[in-house]
């Protein structure tokens, strides 16, 4: 199976095609609904002023996400007596909610991979072609299994969003995903959606 080390170079990303299983190694950052809204409003559209430690977080994110991966995940996290965090359960959340933001965030930070579940739409697919980047599908609900591939929690930002919505910086080893949207305009989700729509039309036309 192909292994991709993070951060990843453009030529590696361009080699990835829809349907290919991949193992990821290196550092990634989690971010979901609150994080995407906050990144776009504060640093991309600048409709709200940065506050508290926002600029410090931004400087860190620029380094971590350049050539890196963002993971749509709201983990279950345990904190031990020494204050060290570990991921207990960490599967993907539904990605389509980030559709309004994702392409802009990818381009702004030069993000090479977006991990989530359920796939994303036309705007993100376009973003994958321009950046270039890929959408990587993790197995929804396989939270204990995936948490075992998270070796270490390195840092956490925006914990005020709550544990599920915070941006966790994690080091992963052999993190399993499948490419379902590539940098050449291919999308497994668009194919399945179209095919199932045709079957639905046939089924609806059948007598009861």
């Amino acid at each position: 199976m192909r292994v991709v080390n993070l951060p990843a170079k453009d030529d590696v990303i361009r080699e990835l095609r829809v349907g290919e299983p991949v193992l990821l190694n290196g550092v990634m950052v989690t971010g979901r609904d609150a994080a995407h809204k906050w990144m776009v409003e504060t640093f991309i559209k600048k409709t709200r002023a940065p506050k508290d430690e926002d600029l410090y977080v931004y400087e860190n994110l620029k380094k971590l996400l350049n050539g890196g991966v963002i993971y749509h995940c709201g983990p279950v996290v345990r904190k031990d007596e020494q204050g060290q965090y570990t991921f207990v359960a960490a599967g993907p959340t539904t990605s389509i909610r980030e559709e309004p933001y994702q392409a802009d965030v990818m381009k702004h930070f030069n993000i090479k991979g977006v991990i989530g579940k359920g796939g994303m739409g036309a705007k993100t697919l376009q973003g994958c072609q321009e950046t270039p980047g890929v959408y990587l599908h993790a197995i929804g609900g396989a939270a204990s299994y995936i948490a075992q591939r998270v070796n270490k929690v390195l840092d956490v930002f925006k914990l005020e969003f709550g544990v599920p919505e915070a941006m966790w910086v994690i080091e992963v080893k052999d993190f399993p995903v499948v490419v379902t949207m590539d940098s050449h305009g291919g999308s497994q989700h668009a194919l399945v959606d179209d095919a199932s729509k045709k079957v639905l039309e046939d089924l609806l036309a059948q007598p009861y």
Partner: protein
Amino acid sequence: MRDLTNEIVEFIRRTSTDLPKDVEDRLRAAVEKEAPGSAARGALETILKNVELSRQNATPICQDTGTPIFYVRYPEGWSTRKLRQMIRDAMEIATKKSYMRPNAVDALYDKNTGNNLGGDDFPYIHFEEVDADQPLTIELMLKGGGCENVGAQYSLPDNRLGAGRDLAGVRKVVLDAVQKAQGQGCAPGILGVAIGGDRGSSYIKSKEILFGKIGERNADPEVAALEERLTNEANQLGIGPMGFGGQTTVIDTKITGLHRLPASYFVSVSYMCWAYRRRKMVVKGEEVLYD
């Protein structure tokens, strides 16, 4: 009245970390239907490994530990006020122990409470009184947000789908809901369908019916036939595990009916993800039994 807080913590742990056998059996059967080496088969194999691992390590099956939905049948004379407090205390402890993710977010102020308690409605608790000689039973379902978001409610007739106010129309809207959900509700899913009621009671009923075992059919043979037909036809859509494309999109369909107003004909579809977490505990005197 005895304090059951610790027993309810254990009950929550079991529900969050140990997938019921009837669900696991169906997932195992589904693996064999997918082509070797396909993404769909790989997804189901990972799902089954995850089920074993979470059971073994007592860690949540899914990090989205969902909306906790409790149905409590209490013998006459028990205090629902005290039972509610025990459930809420247990939920807070279970969250500290990482069996549950802090999942209650104040919608007006965007603030996660951090302990899975929020207002009177989180967790959701339904009480029903039974005779004094009956045992106390508590059922719990954990329903994740991904599958909750793809639930749908239709008001019939639906002109777009050509769905009228009968079982033929119900069939059409349920298939439409499954097609629209794609893989986003963590397919393969289980469908709870309620026909009738008002918008509120209809949705609640469509979840309540999901407490039943997989394969349990409606007593009416015509409705039972529609349940089986819908599972079969949903699978013809080819959406497959995780929406990767494949043979198994829906594992089971359950339909129930309510009384409706002459003016209304709602069909509510609750989609349950493959991580179909629901369990029961029974308290008979000193004995506490978990299913």
